[in-house]
């Protein structure tokens, strides 16, 4: 089987496609997308090309353009979520996406699934742009319109890991930011790199550049609305809260008031 999961048999010499999947890794979480038909394949390969990676133990995700059959996912699903006509559920060692009509449906379900898979791995997804700087990452968070794409567009070429959705994980007692393929207006396909987090910056557009440290409670208050999380399970939310309190306490957090030009880089701590 090659990197894109094509396998052939051919007793009579005819190549027969018996499986078609695409393996990728986001934030060190390997998954394998199994296509039910050819429709999505081209778009998916183009969208996630930078994240193509084949790993042992990748979580299989079975994609189906058709809506979930009557009855829906098994009651034993450890996690499930419905998004319009699309739906995902996690059963044992496999995930299932139904009603996936295009790459945008897939992208949305993938974010939702990742947010769940990350939790026991000490990670979370954040509405944030992440930029490499001096071998570490600056994470710029804020809701739509806060300036994430602006910051990314003002970053040095090749330094943007993502302009929309950042992935933060606590690894070996240190926080690390990973790029993701989930992009915003910047239209950078995202970079599958990662580096230790130097700081989290809460974006505020302002006439002058200024940066001020945020105490943990203020940082938590700023982080919470920007975290992507889709479970209403109490224990999961308690774990998420623990994780965010850890991030707010262990990572230097700042409010960054910035003008819409590259001069704001000068006020960031080295």
């Amino acid at each position, binding site marked *: 089987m090659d990197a894109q999961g094509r396998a052939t048999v051919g007793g009579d010499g005819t190549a027969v496609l018996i499986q078609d999947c695409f393996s990728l890794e986001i934030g060190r979480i390997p998954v394998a997308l199994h296509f039910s038909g050819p429709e999505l394949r081209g778009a998916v390969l183009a969208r996630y090309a930078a994240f193509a990676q084949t790993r042992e133990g990748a979580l299989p995700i079975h994609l189906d353009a058709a809506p979930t059959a009557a009855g829906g996912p098994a009651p034993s699903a450890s996690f499930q979520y419905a998004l319009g006509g699309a739906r995902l559920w996690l059963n044992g060692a496999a995930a299932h996406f139904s009603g996936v009509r295009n790459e945008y449906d897939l992208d949305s379900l993938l974010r939702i699934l990742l947010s769940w898979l990350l939790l026991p791995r000490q990670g979370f997804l954040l509405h944030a742009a992440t930029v490499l700087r001096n071998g570490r990452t600056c994470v710029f968070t804020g809701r739509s319109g806060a300036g994430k794409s602006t910051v990314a567009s003002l970053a040095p070429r090749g330094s943007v890991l993502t302009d929309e959705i950042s992935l933060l994980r606590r690894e070996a007692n240190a926080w690390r930011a990973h790029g993701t393929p989930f992009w915003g207006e910047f239209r950078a396909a995202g970079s599958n790199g990662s580096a230790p987090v130097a700081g989290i910056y809460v974006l505020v557009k302002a006439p002058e550049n200024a940066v001020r440290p945020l*105490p*943990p*409670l203020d940082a*938590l*208050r700023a982080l*919470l*609305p920007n975290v992507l999380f889709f*479970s*209403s*399970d*109490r*224990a*999961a*939310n*308690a774990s*998420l*809260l*623990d994780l965010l*309190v850890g991030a*707010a306490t262990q990572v230097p957090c700042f409010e960054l008031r910035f003008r819409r030009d590259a001069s704001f880089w000068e006020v960031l701590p080295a």
Partner: protein
Amino acid sequence: MTPCAEGCWQKNPSLAWREVEGETVIISPDESVMHELNGTASFIWRHVDGHNSAAQIAELLASEYDVTPMAALEDTETLLTELAERRLLVPAESVEKESGTP
């Protein structure tokens, strides 16, 4: 648990909360809403356990803070009512046991 005869409250079991720098952050997963309690409110929240009545919590509050017993009771009852209106508290009898954090 033994239901409180005086109409005690209990934290809504669906909530997740943590104390940070003396204040309490509460997440209501069903509504995706975050609530915050200041230091005094956090003290009251901490003592809402399905057993303590408002009067008992007020007594603890008065012994901890520089406030008269009457003012403590008024503050406690006001806060409990507000928390109950926001569904952060539920009547103690309506749940089997205390759960949640920390």
